[in-house]
């Protein structure tokens, strides 16, 4: 038997229901999700709103428990949040009472690793070009800067799984394209698992090695598409457009 891959995320028959407002009083957000994600994959999840994309991320993060089924990372079950599964939210959710530097070192401090990894804080702040803003408070930053801080605040733990919930959704088109390249270089430098929820099909194709489309009511996986294009990708390329067509058709547009 071949040795099992060290970083594998496995979702086994996951269902998630919430107390809802319909006749039965239950909303099924996700039903029978089976998924295996290998180390080094960049997976994007696209689909209409209400198909349970964000719920999927929150389950993997351990913020909410599944109603049925289990999730495994490297063979051990997930029960509760852990810094080896970092999450970046749609809003930067920086702590407004902490400066940029304090926000980035928050995780090291609560984990008691601050002394050992202090240099890492400087390195990451420098990497995203925010040296001048290290002592600024979040309300003094632009949307793009805040989201960069949110990214490195999570990166500092070197998570094995990086969960991104529409991290670029609130940014303007130009900042967004720059941030996409930053995301790519982050992913390439540590080669762990990235799972990103997005509404933007182009963004999904530009970044991911794999795009998963979902359908709503109940939330389920519709199609699992591998993107076989070399990086950096060209948004105008014929094969790029071909992928876009395939995904659009799959989502019934």
């Amino acid at each position, binding site marked *: 038997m071949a040795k099992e891959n060290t970083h594998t995320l496995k979702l086994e028959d996951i269902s998630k229901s919430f107390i809802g407002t319909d006749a039965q009083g239950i909303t099924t957000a996700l039903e029978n999700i089976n998924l295996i994600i290998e180390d080094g994959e960049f997976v994007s999840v696209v689909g209409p709103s209400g198909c349970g994309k964000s719920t999927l991320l*929150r389950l993997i*993060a*351990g*913020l909410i428990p599944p109603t049925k089924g289990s999730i495994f990372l490297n063979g051990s079950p997930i029960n509760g*949040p*852990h*810094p080896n*599964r*970092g*999450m970046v*939210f749609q*809003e930067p*959710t920086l*702590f*407004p*009472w*902490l*400066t940029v530097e304090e926000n980035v070192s*928050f*995780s090291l401090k*609560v*984990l008691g690793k601050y002394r050992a990894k202090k240099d890492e804080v400087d390195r990451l702040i420098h990497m995203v070009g925010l040296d001048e803003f290290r002592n600024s*408070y*979040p*309300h003094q930053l632009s949307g793009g800067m805040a989201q960069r801080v949110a990214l490195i*605040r*999570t990166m500092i*733990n070197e998570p094995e799984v990086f969960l991104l919930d529409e991290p670029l959704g609130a940014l303007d088109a130009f900042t967004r394209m720059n941030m996409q390249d930053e995301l790519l270089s982050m992913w390439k430098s540590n080669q762990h698992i990235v799972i990103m929820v997005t509404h933007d099909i182009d963004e999904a194709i530009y970044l991911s090695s794999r795009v998963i489309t979902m359908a709503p009511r109940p939330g389920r996986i519709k199609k699992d598409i591998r993107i076989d294009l070399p990086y950096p990708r060209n948004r105008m390329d014929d094969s790029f457009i071909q992928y876009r067509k395939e995904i659009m058709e799959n989502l019934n547009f």
Partner: protein
Amino acid sequence: MTGIHNVNKDYFDAARTLGAKNTQLVTKIALPASLPNILQGLIQGMSSACTALLVAEMLGVESGLGWYITWQKSWAEFAKMYAAIIIICITFIVVNWILTKIKRMVVKWQEEVN
């Protein structure tokens, strides 16, 4: 209590994914996030407490500035009465000013609304 209740839930989610334990959620998230509201409550509470104290002094006890005002009024010593009122006003203003200063110092991270 409402101060803590109003803290954005996302802060707790973010802190949990960053490895914060339950006690740290209280000390590092709930308390700092609700500090502006708590201080605002203190300032408002201080005003109502002072007012209540004055009224109580005028009615029941035989000491304090509230009592002094009614006492001097009954002797028709209006100058002393007004002096007491002015002292009360000044005390109010000073206490409020100090509390607001403290609030500004503690929550310097808040967006300035001037």
